[in-house]
C-alpha cells in the first residue's frame, strides 16, 4: 500500500507541474480527469486497507476516510464550477493554469492531513494547505484578493507555527516519560503517563493554531475574508473540505489525549471556543450586508456546533462527524449557487438583490433548499444533528449552557433567514440592474449534492450511520 500512497502523491505533484506549464485552457481542465480518477482510486484503496498502518507515518482510519470521501464527492462539482467561473470572468490563461495546479495541490495536501498518523507530518500537510489555499484566494489579482490572501497566509502561518509549538511541547512531555514517537495511536497509550501540564499547553497551542483552518475563535476572521474574496468554487472547497481537515486535525489531538486526566479540561476549552464563536457570529450577523460573508459566518456557526458536539462525550463525537459531513455537501452547493447569484446582480451587497426566484428559478430553488438545509429545518440532516447536539449538551453540561446555546442559535436562525428570504422573495427594485440570465443546467451539480442530503435525511442509511459510529467507537464512553 505504501507504493500506492507514493504513487498518489508523486502523480499529483506531476499533474500539478504539468498544469502550471500547460497554457491551453481546455487541456488544463482535461488534466483534472486523471487527477480525479487517481483520487477516487486512492480513496477506494484506502477503504480496502482501512485501519492499516502504512510505513509508520500514515494510517487509514474511519474518520479520515469519511472526510476523504466528502472531498472525493466535492471535487467534481468544484472543477465544473471552477471552469464556469474562469470562462465567465475571462481569466488569463496563466492564472487559470496556476489556479488548477493549486486546486490539485489543495486536494492532495488535505488528503495528506487526513491520513497522517504522525503529528509532525500532519503539521507539514496543514502548512501545505495554507500555501496552496492562499494562491487560490489570490485568483482575481486585485487589491482585495491580495489583502485576503496575505491575511490568510500570514495569520495561518503564525497559527500553524503556534500549533507546531504545541507539538514540540508534546515532544518534551514524551521525552520525560522516555517515549519518543508522536504517533497518534501510540500517544493514546502513552499520554496518560505524561505530565498534564505539558499536555494542556500542547492542546491549547494546537487548538488556537488550527482554529484558522476550522474557522472558529480565535483566528476565524481571516477565514471569513478568504471565503468572501476567493472565487465561489474555492469558497466551497474551503467550507466543505478544508474546514473538515481543520476539525480532523483538532480531533487527532483530542483523541491522543482523551484517555488522560485532562479530558474534562479539554471539553471545557472546546465548549468555550464553540460558544465564543457563536457569540461572534450573532454580533457580526447584525450588521453584515455581504451575502458571501453571510455564508462564511454560517460556516463558523456550524464549525462551532461541531466543536460543541465534540465536547459532549461519546454521543457528541458521532454527531460532530455527521454534522460536518452534511454541512460540507450543503454549504458547497450554496457556495456554487452564490457564484451564480453574483453573476446576476454583479454585487455582493444584500440591498441590491431580490426577486431571485423570478430571475433564476432553477438557481433560486437550490438556494431555497440549501437555506432550509443549512438552517436545520426538517427534513435536513442538520436538524437531526443539531437536535442530538442539544440533547447531549443537556446530558453533559449544566442546563444554563445548552439554554444559552439555544438562544444564540435562535438568533442566528432569525438573522440568516431574514437575509436569505430577502434575496429570494424581496421585490426587485427598478434601480437594481440585472446583468445575466443563468442557464438552468449550471445548477445540476448543486441539485445532486442537495438530493444526497435530503435523501439521507428522509431515509437514514443504517450502514452509513453505523460506519460513522464505528469511527469514534475507540473513544471512551
Amino acid at each position, binding site marked *: 500500500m505504501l507504493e500506492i500512497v507514493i504513487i498518489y502523491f508523486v502523480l499529483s505533484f506531476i499533474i500539478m507541474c504539468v498544469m502550471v506549464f500547460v497554457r491551453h485552457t481546455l487541456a488544463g481542465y482535461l488534466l483534472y480527469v486523471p487527477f480525479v480518477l487517481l483520487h477516487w482510486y486512492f480513496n477506494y484503496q484506502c477503504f480496502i486497507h482501512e485501519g492499516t498502518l502504512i510505513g509508520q*507515518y500514515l494510517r487509514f482510519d474511519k474518520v479520515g476516510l469519511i472526510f476523504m470521501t466528502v472531498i472525493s464527492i466535492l471535487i467534481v462539482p468544484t472543477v465544473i464550477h471552477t471552469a464556469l467561473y474562469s470562462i465567465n470572468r475571462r481569466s488569463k490563461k496563466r492564472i487559470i493554469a496556476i489556479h488548477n495546479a493549486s486546486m490539485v495541490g489543495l486536494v492532495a495536501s488535505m488528503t495528506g492531513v487526513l491520513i497522517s498518523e504522525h503529528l509532525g*507530518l500532519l503539521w*507539514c500537510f496543514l502548512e501545505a494547505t495554507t500555501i496552496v489555499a492562499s494562491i487560490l484566494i489570490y485568483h482575481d489579482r486585485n487589491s482585495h484578493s*491580495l*489583502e485576503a490572501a496575505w491575511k490568510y497566509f500570514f495569520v495561518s502561518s*503564525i497559527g500553524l507555527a503556534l500549533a507546531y509549538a504545541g507539538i514540540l511541547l508534546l515532544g518534551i512531555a514524551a521525552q520525560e516519560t522516555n517515549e519518543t514517537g508522536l504517533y497518534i495511536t501510540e500517544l493514546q497509550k502513552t499520554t496518560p503517563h505524561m505530565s498534564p501540564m*505539558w499536555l494542556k499547553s500542547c492542546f491549547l497551542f494546537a487548538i488556537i493554531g488550527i482554529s484558522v483552518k476550522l474557522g472558529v475563535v480565535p483566528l476565524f476572521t481571516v477565514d471569513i*475574508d478568504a471565503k468572501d474574496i476567493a472565487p465561489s468554487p474555492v469558497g466551497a472547497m474551503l467550507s466543505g473540505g478544508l474546514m473538515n481537515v481543520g476539525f480532523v486535525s483538532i480531533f487527532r489531538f483530542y483523541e491522543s489525549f482523551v484517555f488522560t486526566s485532562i479530558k474534562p479540561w479539554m471539553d471545557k476549552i472546546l465548549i468555550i471556543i464553540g460558544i465564543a464563536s457563536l457569540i461572534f457570529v450573532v454580533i457580526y450577523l447584525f450588521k*453584515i450586508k455581504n451575502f458571501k460573508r453571510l455564508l462564511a459566518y454560517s460556516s463558523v456557526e456550524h464549525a462551532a456546533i461541531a466543536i460543541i458536539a465534540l465536547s459532549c462525550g461519546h454521543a457528541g463525537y458521532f454527531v460532530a462527524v455527521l454534522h460536518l459531513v452534511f454541512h460540507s455537501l450543503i454549504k458547497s452547493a450554496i457556495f456554487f449557487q452564490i457564484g451564480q447569484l453574483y453573476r446576476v446582480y454583479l454585487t455582493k451587497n444584500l440591498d441590491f438583490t431580490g426577486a431571485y426566484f423570478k430571475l433564476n428559478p432553477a438557481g433560486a430553488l437550490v438556494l431555497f433548499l440549501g437555506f432550509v438545509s443549512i438552517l436545520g429545518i426538517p427534513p435536513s440532516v442538520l436538524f437531526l444533528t443539531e437536535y442530538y447536539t442539544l440533547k447531549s449538551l443537556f446530558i453533559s453540561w449544566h442546563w444554563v449552557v445548552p439554554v444559552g446555546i439555544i438562544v444564540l442559535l435562535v438568533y442566528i436562525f432569525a438573522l440568516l433567514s431574514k437575509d436569505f428570504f430577502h434575496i429570494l422573495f424581496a421585490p426587485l427594485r427598478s434601480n437594481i440592474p440585472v446583468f445575466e440570465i443563468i442557464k438552468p443546467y449550471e445548477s445540476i451539480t448543486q441539485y445532486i449534492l442537495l438530493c444526497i442530503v435530503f435523501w439521507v435525511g428522509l431515509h437514514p442509511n443504517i450502514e452509513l450511520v453505523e460506519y460513522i459510529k464505528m469511527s469514534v467507537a475507540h473513544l471512551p464512553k
Partner: protein
Amino acid sequence: MTNLFIILYCMTLIYLINAGRVLSYIYSLAIQGILLFAIVLSELKEMHLINLTFILLETLIFKGIIVPYYLYYLMKKNNIFYEREPDQLNFYSLFKIAIIFIISFFFGYELHINFETGNAYRLQQHTHEIIYFTASLSSILTGLLIIMRRKKIITHIVGYLVLENGLFMLSLAMGTELPIIINMGILFDILTTVFLLGVFLNRAKGIFKAIEIRNLTELKD
C-alpha cells in the same frame, strides 16, 4: 559553550526589537542563523553525515544565508530601507524585551519543576532545558511583538522568521528529534512560506503606493 551562544542569540533579540533599519533586521536574522548552527553543533553528541548535512542546510545555509539574502533582495527591489514609524521610544522597547525575558524565564522554570511534588532537585536536572526554553519562548514572543507593533510588511516577515527561529530552539529543547523526513517537510514548508510572502510583498508594491499593513484593511464587515 552552548550557553554563551544562547546568550548571544538573546542579545540579537534585544537588538532586533530596537532596530529601525531593515538592513539591521536582516543582519540580525543572518547572525541568528549562524548562532543556531553553532548551538546545534555544540550540542551534537554523535556526528552522522546525514544529520550534519541537514543541520548545515537548515541553519547555516537556509536561516543564515538564503533567507537573509532573499530579504535583502526584497528590500532593494521595493526600496524599503527604514521601518519609518517606530511605535515607541527605544526605552520602551527595552522595557518590553526585558518583560519578555522575565516572563519566558518564569514559564520555563515553572513548567520544568514538578508541580505535584515541588521537587527542587529536578531543577538542577532541568537547568539546561530551562535556558533553552527561556531563549526559545523569548524568541517566539519577540517575533509576535514585532508582528503586532511594526507597520511594514517586510518587518512582519522578519517577525515570522524570528518566531520560526524560536520554534527551532524549542525543538532543540525537545531533545529527541523528529524523524528526518518530517524535518525536511517542515523545512520545505517554511522555505515556501517565506518565498510566497516575498511574492505577495512584490505584488503589494504594484498595487499600493506604500507597502504597509495599513493598506491591508479594506476588507471589513
